[in-house]
C-alpha cells in the first residue's frame, strides 16, 4: 500500500492560516490502513487544528469527512457541494488524491495534510517498511522476490557492496543487507544460478524517466462515463 505520514501541524496551520472554515477530508484507502489519513486521523487532525487556532484567538470551523477513495473521480463528487461550505480543504489522502481533486476542481483550494512516503508493508502494528519503488520493470524474479531497488541503500543491481557486513547494510546496523538476503533466499530456493546469469539491461524508462506514467487497458475503455 501507499504509506503516508501526517505533515507537521505547524505546516498545515500555515497552509490554512487565511481561512476560517476548512474541511479535513480523509481517505479509506491506503492512508486509512497505514493510520495516516482515515476517519480517526481526520478527527485528530481537525481537533488539533481547532485547538491550536482557538488558542491563537482565531477560531477555526472544521467539517470532517472521509471518502471511500480519493484517487477515483466518482468518490470525489462530494467536493462539489463541500467547496461551497468551506474556504479550503486539507486532504489526508496521498498525493494522488490531492492531485486528482486539484485537477477536477480547479477553483478548490486543496492542500496536502500528509507526506506521501513510500510503497510498503505493515509487518507489525504501528510499523511500515518500504518494499517496492514502483520502477515499472520488475526484476524480482531474479532476486528471490526481494527488491534491490527499494531495499538496497545504493539501489544496486549487482550487490552486495563492500559495506555489507555480517548480513547488515553499512548505512545502519539494524538494516539488513538486501543483497545478503537475496543470496540466502536464492540458495534456499535452489536458484543461485540466477546470480550468474546475465540479466537483460533494466529498462528505466517506465521508472518515470519518460515523464508522467500512464497505463491504458483498451478492453476496458468502453462506455466510459468517467
Amino acid at each position, binding site marked *: 500500500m501507499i504509506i503516508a505520514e501526517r505533515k*507537521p*501541524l*505547524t505546516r498545515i*496551520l500555515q497552509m490554512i492560516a487565511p481561512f476560517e472554515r476548512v474541511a479535513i477530508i480523509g481517505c479509506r484507502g491506503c492512508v486509512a490502513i497505514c493510520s495516516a489519513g482515515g476517519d*480517526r486521523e481526520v*478527527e*485528530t487532525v*481537525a*481537533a*488539533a487544528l*481547532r*485547538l*491550536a487556532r*482557538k*488558542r491563537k484567538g482565531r477560531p477555526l470551523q472544521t467539517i470532517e469527512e472521509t471518502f471511500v477513495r480519493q484517487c477515483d473521480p466518482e468518490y470525489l463528487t462530494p467536493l462539489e457541494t463541500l467547496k461551497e461550505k468551506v474556504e479550503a480543504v486539507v486532504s489526508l489522502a496521498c498525493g494522488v488524491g490531492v492531485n486528482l481533486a486539484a485537477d477536477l476542481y480547479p477553483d478548490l483550494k486543496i492542500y496536502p495534510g500528509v507526506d506521501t512516503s513510500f510503497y510498503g508493508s505493515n509487518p507489525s502494528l504501528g510499523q511500515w517498511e518500504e518494499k517496492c519503488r514502483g520502477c515499472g520493470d520488475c526484476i524480482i524474479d531474479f532476486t528471490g522476490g526481494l527488491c534491490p531497488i527499494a531495499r538496497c541503500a545504493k539501489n544496486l543491481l549487482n550487490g552486495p557492496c563492500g559495506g555489507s557486513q555480517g548480513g547488515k547494510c553499512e548505512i545502519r546496523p539494524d538494516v539488513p543487507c538486501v543483497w545478503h538476503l537475496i543470496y540466502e533466499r536464492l540458495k534456499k530456493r535452489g536458484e543461485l544460478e540466477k546470480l550468474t546469469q546475465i540479466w537483460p539491461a533494466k529498462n528505466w524508462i517506465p521508472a518515470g524517466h519518460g515523464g508522467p506514467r500512464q497505463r491504458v487497458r483498451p478492453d476496458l475503455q468502453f462506455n466510459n462515463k468517467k
Partner: protein
Amino acid sequence: MSGWKIAILCCHYTNEASAEDMADIPARVEIKRFSCSGRIEVSDILKALEADAEAVLVAGCEKGSCHNHSGSLRAEKRVEAARKILEEIGMEPERIQMAFIPRLDTGAFVMAAKETFERLLDILPKGEITS
C-alpha cells in the same frame, strides 16, 4: 477557586468517584467516563482541551489489573501521542497526565486529580485562564 477546568477521562471500572469527591481541588473538575480507558482516543483528549479544560487527566486501571486486559496501556500510548501533538502546536505536554489507579480506590483517583492540578500550577500563573 483558580477558575481552571480539569477534565478527567477514565473508564467505568476505575472507580465511582464523582466531581464532589474533588471538592478540595480549587478547580472545576469534569469527569467523562468511557467503556474502557483503551477507548479514549487522542481526539477525545484534544477535544477536552478545546472545550476549555486547562489540563486533562487520563485515568485507567493499574497495570496488570485492567478489566479489559490492556486498555490502560493503550490509553498510556494515546496520552503520549496527544502530548506530542501539544508540543507541535506550542502547548505544554504536561497538561495531559496519565494515572494508573487501583480499582475502586477513590483516594488514589482524587490524588491523581490533585497532582494534575499541581502540574498546572507549575505551568500557568495562578488564576490565569489561557483558553
